């Protein structure tokens, strides 16, 4: 018999349930006084370098109904393409950039909004550059394991055309599900569809 491998198994995911906002954005859900503010509200401040953008979107279920009990988190590089992480060895990331945001969505409509800066390009492990993108993670009641995806920018056609992730997608007619569309000055719309003809491409990463 061979030696035993001693790896542990990752804890199984369970749905975030209907009350994820109690735990992750308690002030939003009306539980005030425990934390001074909810985590992930601000990605930038006045001194952050880069072009200001707003990302707006709604998560829709398979019937076209917007989710109002979802939690959406994003993570992206600064304007130079550097991550505010201890693992970032390529340079010094912008000290005024948080890079991580969390939104419970609007109470009435479910629409999320993130005020941030446009990310720079980040290298892929093969050495080439990825197109500017924002990593998304979506959890909600009825979602058994958090959904990973990326938002790219529809107005970056050249960078997108050489992105190693976008170009490997077999069904190129689905790539637009990952593209945020400009909607006025600095505003991008990125709707997420859990099912249906325009089902977003979700990642197993």
């Amino acid at each position, binding site marked *: 018999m061979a030696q035993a491998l001693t790896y542990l198994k990752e804890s199984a995911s369970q749905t*975030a349930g209907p009350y994820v906002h109690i735990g992750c954005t308690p002030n939003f859900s009306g539980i005030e*006084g425990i934390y001074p503010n909810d985590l992930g509200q601000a990605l930038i401040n006045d001194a952050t370098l880069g072009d200001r953008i707003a990302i707006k979107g709604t998560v829709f279920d398979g019937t076209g109904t917007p989710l109002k009990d979802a939690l959406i988190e994003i993570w992206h590089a600064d304007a130079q393409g550097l991550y505010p992480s201890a693992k970032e060895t390529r340079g010094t990331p912008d000290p005024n950039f948080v890079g991580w945001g969390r939104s419970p969505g609007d109470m009435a409509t479910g629409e999320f909004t993130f005020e941030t800066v446009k990310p720079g390009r980040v290298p892929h492990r093969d050495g080439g550059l990825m197109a500017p993108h924002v990593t998304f993670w979506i959890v909600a009641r009825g979602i058994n394991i958090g959904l990973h995806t990326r938002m790219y920018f529809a107005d970056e056609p050249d960078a997108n055309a050489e992105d190693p992730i976008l170009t490997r997608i077999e069904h190129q007619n689905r790539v637009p599900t990952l593209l945020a569309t400009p909607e006025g000055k600095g505003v991008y719309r990125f709707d997420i569809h859990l099912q249906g003809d325009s089902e977003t491409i979700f990642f197993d990463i």
Partner: protein
Amino acid sequence: MSGYIARDRAWHPPALTPGYKTSVARSPTRALLSFATTMSEETGPMFGHDMLGPQDGDLIHNYAAAGQSAIGPRIVVHGRVLDEAGRGVPGAMVEVWQANAGGRYRHKKEGYIAPLAPNFGGCGRVITGEDGGYEFRTIQPGPYPWPNGPNDWRPAHIHFSVFGHAFAQRLITQMYFEGDPLIPLCPIVRTIPSDAAIDRLTAALDMNATIPMDARAYKFDIVLRGARQTLFENRMEGV
């Protein structure tokens, strides 16, 4: 850094689990896009201990009026956040939320007839220490009925949201209590394919960690995805 170990999707619940009705319209139907992790997934936000308030990890008191405390069975929940290689994950943010002792959440959309507890908010957070250890105090939540099948009940549980060191490790799960007969009956628990994986989410009563005449203790370890590491990499992590 040479990427994160792939998720064992057969160990986790699938997206579509008709016994849990809400998953039916919220489950992606197409195959997920698989690719090796990049910097975008191998990094993630870091949280410092200095951002925590003194009562963030004490749900018995963090919403209570001065001199009062939440009603219910007092417990300590402790354990470690580990990666798949068994290494402790230091600096991991652990956020928890739960119903009160009667099974009622403090939420405007919650309709269960059990009353709110005036001194209980139902959320807390801690950051793991150097060995990945964490601990918080709370009251044991009650089971409650929920609209799914005609008579479905959730076992007593605490929700956990965990940040490791990478966005690829992001995890939300639930902790159950050893011996709860509702565990095998619950459609949400049963989204998990194997009993072995359910057992890993079931905290054991830990008499050695109880506080005599104060609180029982439950031990709950959480395992996040691990990073592959090999001496044949050009650059070891942290070197």
